[in-house]
């Protein structure tokens, strides 16, 4: 089962106009968006789909107040859809749609859809750095930052779910769909990557009471830590609310910056995540501030030292 990762996350929101404003300001591109919602995509075509929560075309809501309606996973080929259908129809209802995609539910009742991935291949450089002892990544006269530099989300990276039972969730995604555990935060849950993706994680679980079941956050990959901080700084300057970051996680090594949203979950910019293969042996660490990050910063307004103190003689 060559699952690549989330193509789309679908939300049923209570304020469509606010969500449209938010997703656009976050840096996603409205594709077929009307006042009823639509798709907002990153540079590779992955993204977020929103509709009003009363829209009958949405999958049914979770029994909690969470606004997540469906996770749409991209797979490599039609054979992968056949394999998923064969495996999951052993013990649950699986629907084959006219376009070949497959819809079902996981063991916690989260709505799932699998499709041949609609993501477009990106061909653009990562952030380039120069350091003594290593070949220069930027050529002479190639500058690293400028005021109007692009800082757009490149790809939907991962989704984090609040689930009441880690074992049930892990057994389903690993045992039935071929995900692999890369690391475990004890007291929270495991990081998972699907077979056809070498990112440290596309999925992470946090154990919570049943009444919190839903999406805790989702993240988009940026081109590097500088793009992450530039995008986050621009977002804060427009009045959006930082929740955590910027900083750099330990597990996954990805830079992070989380924001509140009108979609009832956090939105994260992430950058420079570790890659893994099947040789990797999962680590464990107790959940907590130390395990969660190697560094953490808080944004402040631009400032510069300069010249003599006020009132000093020239």
């Amino acid at each position, binding site marked *: 089962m060559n699952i690549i990762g989330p193509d789309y996350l679908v939300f049923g*929101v*209570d*304020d469509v106009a*606010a969500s449209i404003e*938010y997703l656009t300001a976050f840096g996603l591109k409205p594709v077929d968006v009307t006042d009823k919602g639509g798709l907002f995509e990153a540079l590779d075509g992955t993204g977020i789909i929103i509709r009003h929560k009363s829209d009958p075309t949405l999958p049914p809501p979770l029994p909690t*107040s*969470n*606004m997540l309606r469906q996770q749409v996973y991209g797979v490599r080929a039609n054979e992968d859809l056949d394999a998923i259908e064969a495996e999951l129809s052993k013990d649950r209802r699986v629907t084959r749609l006219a376009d070949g995609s497959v819809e079902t539910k996981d063991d916690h009742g989260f709505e799932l859809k699998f499709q041949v991935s609609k993501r477009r291949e990106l061909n653009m450089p990562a952030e380039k750095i120069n350091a003594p002892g290593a070949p220069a990544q930027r050529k002479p006269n190639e500058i690293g930052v400028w005021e109007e530099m692009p800082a757009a989300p490149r790809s939907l990276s991962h989704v984090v779910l609040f689930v009441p039972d880690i074992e049930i969730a892990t057994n389903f995604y690993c045992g039935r769909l071929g995900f692999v555990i890369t690391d475990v935060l004890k007291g929270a849950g495991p990081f998972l990557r699907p077979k056809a993706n070498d990112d440290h994680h596309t999925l992470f679980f946090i154990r*919570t009471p049943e*009444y*919190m079941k*839903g999406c*805790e956050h989702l993240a988009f990959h940026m081109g590097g830590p500088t793009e992450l901080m530039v995008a986050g700084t621009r977002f804060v300057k*427009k*009045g*959006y*609310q930082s*929740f955590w970051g910027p900083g750099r996680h330990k597990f996954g090594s990805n830079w992070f910056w989380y*924001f*509140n*949203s*009108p979609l*009832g*979950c*956090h939105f994260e910019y992430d950058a420079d995540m570790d890659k893994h293969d099947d040789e990797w042996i999962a680590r464990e660490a107790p959940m907590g501030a130390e395990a969660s990050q190697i560094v953490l910063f808080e944004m402040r307004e631009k400032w510069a030292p300069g010249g003599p103190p006020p009132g000093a003689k020239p």
Partner: protein
Amino acid sequence: MTSAQPLCHADEIAEGEARGFGPLEGYRRKIVVLRHNGTLHAWLDACPHYPGGTPMAWKTDAYLNGEKTHIACHSHGALFDMETGECVLGPCLGQQLTRIALTMSDEGEIFVTAAQEEKRA
């Protein structure tokens, strides 16, 4: 020491609207002032879901849910009663926002009194 810190004129907050002020001296978070059924209420901008409280808006002054019936924490979607501050839905169910006392001058200016650090939610 206590001193009154001005927020705005009461008329600047219309029915069903919320605004954030600060952070003001003596308060670790902003103060959210809203008008519901004609009455002004003020709450510390600190969702009790996590120790210490986290800011609730998704954007400047965006403190209410889509239907404008509740204060919403836009971290995880918790909803709070606008008059009592009680969480009625979400991760901190049954917990409460911290109420901030308002005073009003004869001219209609509203103030908060900067007391010692306010009590934990």
